[in-house]
């Protein structure tokens, strides 16, 4: 290793200068970013649904704002994934048809040779790993695995999205089968697409070209030596016939626009047209408040109101006054510390506070004391109900 850095010899090729090689253009980098985001969100919101009973899932769903919210996020990310897949298909068609770029990503017989060579190298039977072109056999395999996974996930996902429509044509069993395949395929994505891919590219190769766009020359030679040869020899891109390219563009853009619109419309249709179930509830604030119930078991509206709707609203003069004078007056009469026989006196109350809060029976000491049912002078249930209704009505005179 006496050579200076820019004079390295790697795999019989001399690294002449420390230059970088363009690997991914901005469009592919953007595609990868969007794909990464969509898949990340889909796994984060989807796997907790596959493992619903795990405490981790329950925590995660809690962070996401509940299962309903998680499902909305999952579906939004699914639309993003379908969108990026559609763009990728159109872009790939453009590169092949209009720009006449070679289909580097197709699996060839040489890939099998490289795979076996790679295996021998791993087993220590070959000194060097195979010399490969723009895409290595493992990159191609991963690419087609992603294509397969996205297809399976989109098809099964749309089936679960529209179970009523699907079962008009197919047996209902398709839906749980789609669910099973969807969750399992997602695990495959986690193992291969995330686990293996990140290990191999980031940890093993320290290759950030999908974000930076470029490989260093040693990386280019190590992983894509044959492509390096082609670039050096100027064989990496064929001269384009400008006239022919323009002609192909005139055909491509209308066709791609039509196909793209049709597919986008199809996605839009499939994600929006079915109302699978009646929706009656959302996730709202709790209806019952535990704390308030614990103090005094008083419902907001006494049951007797519903039971006797024909009764006129009670007033102090006609109902409550005579009742309290008869039932409570002996102790709480005129001149006592707490006078319950006079309208003005009962509203002003006595220390520590008022005994009647108009409109709020549950805060009125008169009701609270009586509801406990252990006061020396005890109103009957019907009488107390009258008092509660009177207070709820605003304690009219």
């Amino acid at each position, binding site marked *: 290793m006496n050579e200076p850095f820019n004079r390295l010899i790697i795999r019989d090729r001399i690294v002449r200068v420390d230059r970088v090689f363009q690997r991914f253009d901005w469009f592919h980098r953007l595609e990868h970013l969007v794909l990464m985001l969509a898949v990340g969100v889909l796994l984060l919101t989807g796997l907790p649904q596959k493992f619903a009973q795990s405490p981790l899932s329950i925590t995660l769903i809690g962070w996401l704002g509940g299962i309903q919210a998680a499902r909305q996020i999952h579906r939004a990310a699914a639309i993003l994934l379908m969108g990026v897949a559609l763009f990728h298909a159109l872009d790939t068609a453009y590169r092949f048809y209009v720009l006449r770029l070679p289909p580097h990503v197709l699996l060839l017989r040489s890939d099998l040779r490289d795979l076996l060579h790679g295996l021998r190298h791993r087993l220590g039977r070959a000194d060097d790993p195979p010399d490969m072109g723009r895409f290595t056999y493992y990159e191609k395999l991963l690419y087609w695995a992603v294509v397969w996974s996205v297809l399976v996930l989109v098809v099964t996902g749309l089936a679960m999205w529209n*179970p009523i429509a699907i079962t008009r044509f197919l047996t209902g069993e398709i839906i749980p089968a789609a669910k099973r395949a969807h969750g399992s395929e997602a695990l495959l994505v986690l193992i291969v697409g995330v686990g293996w891919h990140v290990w191999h590219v980031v940890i093993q190769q320290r290759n950030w070209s999908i974000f930076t766009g470029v490989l260093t020359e040693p990386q280019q030679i190590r992983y894509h030596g044959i492509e390096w040869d082609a670039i050096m020899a100027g064989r990496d891109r064929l001269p384009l016939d400008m006239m022919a390219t323009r002609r192909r563009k005139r055909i491509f853009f209308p066709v791609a626009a039509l196909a793209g619109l049709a597919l986008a419309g199809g996605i839009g249709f499939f994600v929006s047209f079915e109302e699978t179930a009646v929706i009656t509830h959302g996730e709202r604030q*709790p209806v019952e408040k535990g704390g308030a119930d614990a103090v005094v078991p008083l419902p907001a509206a006494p049951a007797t109101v519903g039971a006797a709707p024909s009764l006129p609203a009670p007033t102090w003069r006609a109902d409550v006054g005579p009742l309290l004078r008869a039932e409570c007056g002996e102790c709480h009469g005129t001149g006592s510390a707490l006078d319950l026989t006079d309208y003005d006196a009962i509203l002003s109350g006595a220390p520590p506070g008022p005994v009647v809060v108009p409109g709020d029976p549950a805060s009125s000491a008169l009701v609270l004391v009586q509801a406990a049912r252990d006061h020396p002078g005890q109103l009957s249930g019907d009488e107390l109900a009258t008092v509660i209704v009177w207070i709820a009505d605003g304690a009219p005179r």
Partner: protein
Amino acid sequence: MTLPSGETLPLMVDVQGFAGSVHGQAGLTCVDCHRDYDGYPHPARFDASLRDFQLTHYTLCQDCHLPQYQAQLDSVHQRALASGRRDAAICTDCHGAHEVVSPDEHAASIPQTCSRCHATIYEQYGESVHGAALLETANPDVPTCVDCHGVHNIADPLTAGFRLASPDICAGCHADPERMDPYGISTAVVETYVADFHGTTTTLFEPRSPQNPPDEAICIDCHGIHDIKPVDDPASPVVRENLLTTCQQCHPAAGEHFPAAWASHYIPSPDHNPIVYHVGEFYATLLPTAGVLLGAVVAADVVGGLWRLARKWVRGR
């Protein structure tokens, strides 16, 4: 003794009956409960009606049965009472006063007790798979009212919280092989429910929103509540002929094939839901294969790297 309401408060007690009651057998006497009658003549009483008398006396039970008394303070009955429903059940309405017997002696007496107020539900229960087994064959394994609703602290069953927690009530028996095996009933009902869309949702919904009702179906939405029928009864809402109607309660647009989207609590097998089974088998092969192969490559890379390092080190010497 005639009360202001015109009702008669009987002053005679059936001595034989009291002697046979749990209290009589325990050696309790009249004054253990009736303690506020000191002196003669007895102090005057001011109960306007029979119910007034009962409502002022039942609180005596707490002197000996405090945990039960406190539990019933949280009950739906006590809440109804506090809101003015004077006929809501108190201790003596269910247990009696002078002739209290142990409720464990005769299980059928429990629904019969509740039926005094809840007659319609009792009728439904009597025709259900559970009630018929209890009332007609005295089967001790089926649930009575209290097995699902609790005893003294009976909760309001109309709340969202009760609804959401109710699958656990069913699971208490239906996930227990000891109880189900003698009847040949599958205990996979809970895990197959959780594995399906409805169960997955409610499982993830409950910990976060225990007081809100989810849209997704729980046990009782398909099987019924007090009127649960055997799953092969033609009147059951989950028997094949009725299943579509049951699904349409929530999925009004569902067609004839839709009910088959529910796997009927079967764990997929070649006989039941073969497509699901074979998809499962496919991935059960593919996933470990992918895992092992890639794991082996990673392991080989790590080992190979170490091996090359070691060889370089040896050569360097």
